């Protein structure tokens, strides 16, 4: 469990984090979401002890963050690269040793990863001779080779091609199943929505929301339903619904009707269904779950006022 308490950090006059507190449960996949410049990278750098907060503290399993914790963190920064003129093998060994592995252990694990990613014959190649996608695989190995308990990815899938992104995604999920805590940070909210089970929303240095993704989404449900109804007389249907429900995004087709309807809180799903059945054949009916993006926009709009 990683706990950040009241972190403040400013650069000159610019406030990067304000009273920022979150809890990252063990073995979770945690999404740190927010637009560019919200303070995500600043927080990740503080977690990696690249920068020091002005105030506040970070606890890992109830102990203050200390220098040796670096060995248990794997960090893939947004701006990533490798030494161009160094050989792949030398490079991985060097960076793994900096994380505290012995040379022999680093070598053993390097070849295990080469095997997993099917790049066995790369160790003598120089980075400048590799394609971008190939270099990304090496970067991933560098991030995970010391078997960290916490993996931090800043904008993980920007710059990855779709094939590599899928490979890396699978490897990340596999590591999570083996017990690694994963922390993502991204401004493309939809990209990690499916992966994360916990999240926090950051806006202009403030945390605006955090918790379990499912709980957050549920709490933002507003009794809106997506309906597809078979009917010959759409006029009649709409006129009978409109007085009691808010209707949106109405699309009328020749023999059916699609729309969203927002019901008052005292209506249950069954109540609404009962109404709809009388009007025509219900082809589809589902409660509308808001996307993280929508929640964010709603939250930020509320926050700003």
């Amino acid at each position, binding site marked *: 469990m990683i706990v950040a308490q009241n972190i403040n950090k400013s650069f*000159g006059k610019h406030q990067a984090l304000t009273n920022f507190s979150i809890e990252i449960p063990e073995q979770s996949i945690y999404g740190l979401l927010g637009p560019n410049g919200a303070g995500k990278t600043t927080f990740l750098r503080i977690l990696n002890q690249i920068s020091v907060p002005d105030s506040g503290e970070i606890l890992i399993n109830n102990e203050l963050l200390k220098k040796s914790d670096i060995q248990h*963190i794997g960090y893939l*920064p947004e701006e990533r690269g490798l030494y161009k003129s160094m050989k792949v093998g030398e490079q991985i060994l060097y960076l793994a040793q900096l994380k505290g592995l012995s040379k022999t252990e680093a070598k053993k694990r390097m070849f295990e990863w080469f095997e997993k990613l099917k790049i066995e014959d790369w160790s003598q190649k120089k980075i400048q001779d590799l394609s971008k996608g190939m270099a990304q695989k090496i970067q991933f190995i560098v991030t995970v080779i010391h078997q960290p308990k916490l993996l931090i990815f800043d904008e993980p899938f920007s710059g990855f091609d779709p094939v590599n992104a899928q490979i890396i995604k699978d490897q990340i999920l596999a590591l999570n199943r083996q017990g690694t805590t994963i922390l993502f940070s991204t401004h493309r909210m939809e990209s990690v929505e499916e992966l994360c089970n916990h999240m926090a929303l950051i806006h202009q240095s403030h945390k605006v929301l955090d918790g379990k993704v499912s709980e957050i989404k549920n709490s933002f449900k507003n009794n809106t339903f997506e309906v597809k109804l078979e009917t010959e007389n759409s006029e009649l249907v709409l006129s009978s619904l409109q007085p009691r429900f808010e209707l949106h995004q109405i699309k009328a087709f020749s023999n059916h009707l699609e729309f969203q309807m927002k019901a008052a809180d005292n209506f249950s799903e069954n109540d609404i269904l009962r109404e709809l059945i009388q009007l025509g054949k219900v082809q589809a009916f589902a409660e509308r779950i808001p996307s993280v993006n929508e929640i964010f926009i709603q939250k930020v709009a509320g926050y700003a006022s």
Partner: protein
Amino acid sequence: MHRNLKLIITREYLARVKNKTFVVMTFLSPLIMTAMFFLVYYLTMVNNQEVKTIGILDPTSLYTYEANSTDNFQFKKYENTDLNSALIDVMEKEYDGLLYIPKEIESSDYESEIEFFSNAAGNAIISKIENDISKIITNKKLEKAGVDISKLNDAKTRIDLKIENFSGEKTSKIESYIKIFFGGIAGYLIMMFIIIYGNMIMRSVIEEKTNRIVEIIISSVKPVDLMLGKIIGTSLAGVTQFVLWTIIGSFLLVVVSSVFGVEINQVNHTATAIENNEFAYILQSVMNLPILLLCVMFIIYFVLGYFLYSAIYAAIGAAVDSETDTQQFMFPIIMPLMLAVYVGFFSVINNPHGMISVVFSHIPLTSPIVMLMRIPFGVAWWEILISVLILMISVFMMVRIGAKIYKVGILKYGKKPTFKEMFKWLKY
């Protein structure tokens, strides 16, 4: 964390040493230097062996050419011809020039009367002829005035002051040249090393920044360790290069001198024959220098000065995105170095313990060079101690300041910072 510093030093060292430019420079420069040396030597030899032939048309018999002929000059006398036919003959036979003395000279201004015709009037020829003629005329005039030339020559006295310092040790002008030579070499080496390897550090910082690998590394190690590792690793590569240069250089010298063996022996032979005393004296002067002190202080000032400047170079490398952006920051670095060398070669020679020399041998940015140039002239131990202490404190502070700028700078991209902004980073 000690382990990480070692890892970084090793990587930086290997990265420098394995670099192709480094390898080429290390092995090629001594070859080029030796080749240049022998080319210059050879050309001078050829030049000296050349015999200049000069025609003389001298109806006055003023210029007694037989007596003045040397290995390098041959004179051909014309008689009973006029100037034109003599000139034509000189041109046909491709002599180097024609000296024409039209008539007996009475006044003291001969400039307009004695003429020298030549298409390539080298300085050596002209000054020889001018010296000879003025000597001849002076002697003639003295004789006319009733002076016995042989008595005059006997009376001529050459004075060499025997210079001693207050404790009675002999010194001399040559000795002070030797002192400035050794001090100068030491100072100059430090300057070259700082500029060459400081630039190397800066480039490698910029490389890490543009590669974007730096954030991955400083998530494992402290930025200060990365910076120090870089400085130490690069300096070790520099030391390696110097050592290799010395070894290859001396090896080449031995090889080449055994090939050209005879000639070099000859040169040495004539040199010793003529200047046997002087040579021994020079040797003795060198032995008299505080060599041990000079060596120890060289190493101390070298290390401290190098660290002082490297920290600045590293900070600048971290602050910019590309090498082209470094120009505006280079001047403030090069200036104190140049200043130190100039102060060394002008002020220290004239007055090694004068105000300017003393002040600049205590200012940290110039002291490594200026103090090293002063040490051969004898500097009180406490003065050296103060200078080293000031330098140590400055290095300590500069490394900290450099590390701060470095730490902030390596994560900043985009806009080229100003000095003002870099100053602000110190407070982050």
